C-alpha cells in the first residue's frame, strides 16, 4: 500500500490544500482507490506506479502500453531492474543485480513464495498487469514495509473494483498478437457496482508457441499457455470504511524452459486476501487490517524432451498464511509516524522421483525441500520529519523474529548423512533500518542521501535444499541449516532535478554485504545429477561489494515530443575479490516520444555493453555487446461509449541475435517481433 499512500496522499494534499479534516482527506483517498480508471505508468528511479489514476502523467507511452501485456516485459523496462530468462515465461526479476533470493516479493502486501526449487516460478509470474494497480520496487536495505531483505522488495498492488453509481457497469477487452512466438493474448476486465458493493472480475488467457531467435532458429521448448482469473469484491458500509476481498487464481500449463533440462506441466497459484480499511481504529489512523492465504502447486515435466538422461518427476508446493495491521500513529505538520505489524508462516515441500532407464531398477526418491516450515513476525515503523523547510528526514526501522524447521522424518534422515539436523527449531532476529535525508537544494533540485542496513534469513533452498541442480553453473547445491543471516550495509546518494522541460534523476549506490550467501564447491562430495560438475554448499562467504547506479533523463523537445534516456550499471565483487556472477553490464536506452492527435509514436534504441567480468567459480562465459531498435505506435480513439486503443510495435527491428549476461543457459532472446494490441474500454 505504500506507493498508493504516498502517491495519492501527495496528490490529494496538493489538490485539496489544508482546509480539510483528516477524515475527509481519508475518504477522498479511499474514493480515489476505487474511482479512477485507466492504465498509466508513473516511473521514477526509486518507485514505479502503474496506475489507473488519470492524474498521473506519462499515460500514453506506447512501448509501455505494449509492455503492459505481461509482467515480465513490464518489469524489464524499469530502472534498476533486469529480467533473468530461463525461457519465454516467468522471468525472474533482478533488482540491481540481486536475484529473488535476496529481496522480498509480495502481492498486495501478501507474502508469496514460488514452489519451484529451480526458480521457474518467481511470484511475479502469478500476477498479470491487467490486475495491477501499482508496482512498488525498493532496492537494497531500504525499508519497504513488507519484510526484511538485503536486496529490496517488489510489491504488486492489486486493482480494486470501481464504485460508480452513475455508470455501474464497465468493461475492458484487450487482445494482442506477437509474431515472434505466434502468441495470442486475450483479457477481459469487468466491473459492476451497486450502492455499497462493487465487484471486479478479470480473466486473462495467453498462449504462445516456440519463439524464433535473432538467428532465425526456432527455440524449442519455449512455448507456454496460461490463464489467470481474478475476483475482487469491495463493500463500503459507510464512506470511511471498506471491506475488500481479493481472489487470484493463476494456472500455467505446458510451459517450456529451453534454458533448463526440464519444462513445467503446470504451475497453479491461488491467493486469497481479506482486508479492512477504515479511518480510525484504536490508536491507528487510516489502518488496514489484512488476512491472507495463498498456495502454489508446481510440477516439472521432462516428458516432452527428445532425450533425457533420466526421466524425473519434480513436484513442489508452498503454502503461506499471514496477516498484518498497518496504519498511521501520528500525523502532524512536521512529522508523521506510520507502523505495520505483520506475521506469516510458510511451508515448502518439493520432491524428486527419478526413473531409471532400466526397467528392473527401482525409482529413486529424494525430498529436495524436506517439508520446511518458517514463521516470521515483524514490526516496522516509518518516520518522516521536516527538520527545516528544505530538509526532510525519513527513517524506517523493522524488527523481525522468525524460526524455521523441517517436519519430515525422511528429510531428517537425509540430513543425517551430513551429520546435521533440521528438526531442531532455529530462531533468528532480523534488524532492518534506514535513514534518508532529502535536501531541497533549490526549487528544482533535491539531493537524497541515505544509509540503510538490512538482514535476511537464508532461503528455503539455501537452508534446507537437498541436491538442487543449478543449470547455470552445473553444480548440485546443498543447503546448510546452520547458515547465519546475511547482512547488507547500503549507502546511496541521488539527486532529482525537475525543470520546465526536463527531468533528471540519478542514483548511485554501494552495497557492503557480510555473510554473503553463495554456493561454495566441496571437492569431497560427488554430484548426484547426471552430468553435474560437483557439489556446492550454500555458505556464508564473507564480505561482498556491489556498486552501481541508474540515470533517468526526460526532455521535452517540442510540444508533444519528448525524449527519455535510461542508464543502469552494476559492479560486483565477491569475498575473494573475484567478479560476482550474473552482474548486469552497462545498459542504455534512449527513446523519443511524439504525440499528435491521439497518435503516439515512440522509436527506441537499447545498447548493452559486453560483460567480460565473469565469475570463474560460476563457470560464467563472457557476453557480447548488443544493440536493439524498437518502435511503438499507438492510436487512441475516444468514443461516446468508451475508448478504443490500437497499438503496433516492432521489437528488435534489426533481428539482433543476443542474450543478456544474466540469462540462464546459452539461449538467445527473441528476434524481430511485430506485436499488435487492441484494447476497448466500455463504460
Amino acid at each position, binding site marked *: 500500500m505504500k506507493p498508493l499512500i504516498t502517491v495519492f496522499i501527495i496528490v490529494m494534499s496538493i489538490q485539496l490544500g489544508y482546509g480539510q479534516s483528516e477524515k475527509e482527506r481519508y475518504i477522498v483517498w479511499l474514493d480515489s482507490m476505487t474511482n479512477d480508471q485507466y492504465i498509466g505508468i508513473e516511473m521514477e528511479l526509486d518507485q514505479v506506479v502503474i496506475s489507473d489514476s488519470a492524474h498521473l502523467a506519462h499515460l500514453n507511452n506506447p512501448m509501455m502500453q505494449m509492455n503492459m501485456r505481461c509482467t515480465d516485459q513490464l518489469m524489464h523496462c524499469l530502472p534498476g531492474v533486469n529480467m533473468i530468462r530461463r525461457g519465454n515465461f516467468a522471468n525472474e526479476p533482478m533488482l540491481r543485480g540481486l536475484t529473488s533470493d535476496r529481496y522480498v516479493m509480495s502481492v498486495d502486501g501478501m507474502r508469496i513464495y514460488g514452489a519451484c526449487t529451480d526458480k521457474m516460478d518467481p511470484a511475479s509470474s502469478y500476477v498479470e498487469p491487467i490486475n495491477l494497480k501499482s508496482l512498488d520496487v525498493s532496492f537494497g536495505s531500504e525499508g519497504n514495509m513488507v519484510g526484511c531483505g538485503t536486496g529490496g522488495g517488489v510489491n504488486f498492488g492489486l486493482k480494486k473494483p470501481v464504485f460508480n453509481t452513475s455508470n455501474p457497469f464497465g468493461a475492458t477487452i484487450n487482445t494482442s498478437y506477437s509474431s515472434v512466438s505466434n502468441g495470442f493474448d486475450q483479457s477481459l476486465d469487468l466491473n459492476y457496482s451497486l450502492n455499497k458493493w462493487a465487484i471486479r472480475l478479470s480473466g486473462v488467457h495467453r498462449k504462445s508457441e516456440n519463439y524464433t531467435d535473432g538467428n532465425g532458429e526456432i527455440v524449442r521448448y519455449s512455448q507456454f499457455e496460461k490463464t489467470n482469473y481474478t475476483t475482487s469484491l469491495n463493500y463500503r458500509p459507510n464512506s470511511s470504511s471498506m471491506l475488500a476481498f481479493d481472489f487470484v487464481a493463476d494456472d500455467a500449463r505446458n510451459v517450456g524452459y529451453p534454458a533448463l533440462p526440464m519444462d513445467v506441466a503446470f504451475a497453479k497459484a491461488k491467493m486469497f486476501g481479506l482486508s479492512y480499511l477504515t479511518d480510525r481504529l484504536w490508536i491507528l489512523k487510516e489502518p488496514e487490517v489484512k488476512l491472507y492465504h495463498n498456495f502454489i502447486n508446481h510440477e516439472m515435466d521432462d516428458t516432452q524432451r527428445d532425450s533425457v538422461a533420466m526421466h524425473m518427476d519434480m513436484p513442489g508446493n508452498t503454502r503461506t*498464511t499471514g496477516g498484518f495491521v498497518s496504519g498511521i500513529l501520528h500525523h502532524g505538520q512536521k512529522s508523521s509516524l506510520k507502523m505495520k505489524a505483520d506475521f506469516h508462516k510458510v511451508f515448502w515441500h518439493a520432491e524428486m522421483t527419478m526413473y531409471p532407464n532400466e526397467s528392473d531398477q*527401482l*525409482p529413486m526418491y*529424494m525430498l529436495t525441500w524436506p517439508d520446511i516450515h518458517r514463521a516470521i513476525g515483524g*514490526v516496522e515503523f516509518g518516520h518522516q520529519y521536516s527538520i527545516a523547510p528544505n530538509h526532510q528526514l525519513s527513517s524506517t526501522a523493522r524488527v523481525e*523474529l522468525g524460526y524455521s524447521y523441517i517436519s519430515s522424518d*525422511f528429510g531428517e534422515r537425509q540430513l543425517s548423512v551430513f551429520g546435521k539436523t533440521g528438526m531442531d527449531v532455529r530462531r533468528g532476529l532480523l534488524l532492518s533500518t534506514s535513514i534518508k535525508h532529502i535536501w531541497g537544494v533549490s526549487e528544482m533540485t533535491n539531493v537524497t542521501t541515505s544509509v540503510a542496513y538490512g538482514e535476511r534469513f537464508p532461503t528455503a533452498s539455501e537452508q534446507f535444499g537437498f541436491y538442487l541442480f543449478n543449470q547455470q553453473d552445473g553444480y548440485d547445491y546443498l543447503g546448510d541449516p546452520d547458515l547465519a543471516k546475511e547482512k547488507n550495509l547500503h549507502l546511496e546518494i541521488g539527486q532529482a532535478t525537475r525543470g520546465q522541460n526536463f527531468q533528471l534523476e540519478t542514483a548511485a549506490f554501494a552495497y557492503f554485504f557480510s555473510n554473503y550467501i553463495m554456493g561454495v564447491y566441496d571437492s569431497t562430495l*560427488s554430484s548426484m545429477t547426471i552430468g553435474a560438475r560437483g557439489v556446492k554448499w550454500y555458505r556464508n562467504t564473507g564480505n561482498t561489494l556491489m556498486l552501481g547506479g541508474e540515470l533517468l533523463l526526460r526532455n521535452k523537445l517540442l510540444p508533444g515530443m519528448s525524449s527519455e534516456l535510461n542508464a543502469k550499471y552494476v559492479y560486483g565483487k565477491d569475498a575473494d575479490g573475484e567478479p560476482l556472477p550474473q552482474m548486469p553490464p552497462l545498459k542504455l536506452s534512449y527513446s523519443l516520444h511524439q504525440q499528435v492527435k491521439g497518435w503516439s509514436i515512440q522509436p527506441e534504441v537499447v545498447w548493452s555493453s559486453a560483460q567480460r567480468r565473469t565469475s570463474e567459480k560460476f563457470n560464467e562465459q563472457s557476453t557480447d555487446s548488443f544493440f536493439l531498435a524498437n518502435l511503438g505506435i499507438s492510436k487512441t480513439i475516444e468514443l461516446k461509449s468508451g475508448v478504443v486503443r490500437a497499438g503496433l510495435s516492432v521489437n528488435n527491428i534489426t533481428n539482433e541475435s543476443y542474450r543478456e549476461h544474466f540469462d540462464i543457459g546459452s539461449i538467445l532472446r527473441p528476434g524481430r517481433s511485430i506485436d499488435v494490441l487492441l484494447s476497448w474500454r466500455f463504460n
Partner: protein
Amino acid sequence: MNTLKILSLVLLALLFSCDSEEPEPEFESDLVEITSVTENGLTVTILATQSLYVGYNSITAKVEDDNGNLVGGDISVLPLMDMTTMVHSCPLEVSGSALSEGEYQFNTVFVMPSGEMGSWSLDFTINDAEVSVPVEVSSPELSRLVSFTSAMDESTKYFVAYIDPKDPQVGQNDLEIAVYKKQTMMEWPAVDNLEFELEPWMVSMDHGSPNNLAPVHTDDGHYKGTVNFTMTGDWQLRLTMMEDGQVCGTPYFDLYFQ
C-alpha cells in the same frame, strides 16, 4: 519470542493450521516358526525372523519334552550340509552351551541353498540326546553372502556375510558385516585382521554418497561402520577388502529400497 507470540495471537489466532504429527506405526519383529522336529522324546522348534536363507541367520531353537515342558540343560548345534558324496558345515556363532528357559540362540551363515545338490540340517545334541532338524535354506532375492578366493592366496576362500542394515533407509545407517574363511569342511573360522574401504554406489545414476565410515573389526569377525544413502533406489554397497594393505577382494551387496 514473546513479541512474536503476542503478535501471532492478535493477528492470526485462527489461522494456524494444524500440523498433526502422524505416529509412526510400531514395527514388531516377532520370531516366526520355521520348522519343528520331534525325536528322542524332544521337540525342537526352529524360530527366526524370516525363513532361512544363504547368509547370516540368527536362529532360536526352542526345546520341549513330550509333555510340552521347556527343557533345560546342555545343548550344542552343528549345521551340516549333506551332499551325499561329502558333508560340510558352515560358520557358526554360539554363546555358551546351556538352554535358557528352553531356548538357545545362535547365529549361522549358510553358505549355499538347499536343493538338488544337497540338504541342510541343524544337528542338536541336547543332554546327550541327538535331534537332527532338516531345514530349508533358500537363496534370497538379493545376495547376502559373497564368497571368493583371495586375490593374494588362492588357497583361502572368504565368505563375507551382510548383517546390517536389514531395513536400509535414506540417511545414516549402521553397517555390519562378518567375514569367515573355509579352513576345512568342518572349520569355518572368523577372520579378524581385515581392513575395508566402503563406497555405496547408485548404479543407475553413477554416483556415490558422502561421509561413510568403512567397517572396522569389532569382534569375532564382525566389522562395523556407517553407510549413508541420499535417496531411495537400488544402491550397491561396494567394499574393498584388504589384508596387510593388499587387496584380497572386492565384494559388493545390492540393496533395493523404496
